[in-house]
């Protein structure tokens, strides 16, 4: 029996145009590699030998965070109550404008309490967020600037 006949009767298959593609890639690659193999990039002298990472010291900080997390819900609620009390006790015409500014600053400086926020928000509150006029473009920009792709891909 000839080899061709064996192949014709074989139950094994290859992807469509596999052999044509294999040839093309193989010969194109060989041809390319004969003219250029390296990138041409180089590094400063002994850069890789001297490369070092200062390991971030996070142990004390992480303990502190654990402690904060435990009480963050209560801290957040107390702070929010005091904040609201303070705001409503201010007889000012610009209350609305100031409150937005103060709120924004508060959220920027103290707002790393996302879990506490999530705990406090109800489904109704979340639905109300839909009235905010934020375009997809702005959301996309925000994600691009702030979210870590690595985090999104890995977790």
């Amino acid at each position, binding site marked *: 029996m000839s080899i061709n006949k064996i192949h014709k009767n074989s139950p094994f298959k290859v*992807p469509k145009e596999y052999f044509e*593609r294999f040839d*093309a*890639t193989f010969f*194109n*690659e060989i*041809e*390319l*590699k004969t*003219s*250029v193999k*390296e*990138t*041409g*990039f*180089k*590094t*400063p002298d002994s*850069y*890789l030998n001297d*490369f*070092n*990472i200062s*390991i*971030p010291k*996070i142990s004390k900080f992480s303990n502190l965070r654990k402690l904060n997390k435990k009480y963050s819900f209560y801290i957040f609620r107390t702070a929010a109550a005091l904040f609201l009390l303070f705001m409503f006790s201010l007889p000012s015409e610009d209350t609305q404008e100031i409150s937005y500014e103060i709120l924004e600053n508060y959220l920027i400086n103290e707002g790393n309490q996302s879990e506490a926020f999530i705990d406090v928000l109800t489904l109704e509150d979340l639905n109300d967020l839909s009235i905010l006029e934020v375009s997809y473009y702005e959301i996309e*920009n925000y994600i*691009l*600037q702030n979210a*870590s*792709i*690595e985090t999104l*891909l*890995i*977790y």
Partner: protein
Amino acid sequence: MQNEAKLLSLLKLDNSKELAFKTLVKRYKEKLYWHIRKIVISHDDADDVLQNTFIKIFRNIDKFKGDSKLYTWMYRIATNESISFLNSKAKRNQVSNKTLNENAIQNLVADVYFEGDEIQLKLQKAIAQLPRIQQLVFNMRYFDDIKYKDMSSILETSEGALKASYHIAVKKIKTYLQAD
């Protein structure tokens, strides 16, 4: 592989973590540097991304469950850090990613850390014309000879799709080089 498993277990213990991490940096800094450098092109940018990559590895090593090889996991972080870095840079400079890439290649001519000849410069220009995924696949296969199986784990794409991307990339580059 066994060494990798041992290193990983040392990385997860508090008393050996720092020393094991130093070993990890020593072992992989060069490979990761060149992988990053081919994506971001400039040495200074590659240095920044390499630092960030290792810091991220250090912070997340406890969450690594061993579903993939340690080195493919690190390559994935390096790749994502590089892309994230380029996106932020493009945003900061208010240019598109394509323009940013073209500018980086233009700057190579005067770059003291590029000693490529005319054909190497032309190859970099050809690579810059490719879509991002084809650039990644071409660099990883052509220069680093990374297996499709590992590449599949790094880029989270099927081996078949990666082979097709490489085939198209090689064809486009050959055409680009022959055109001039």
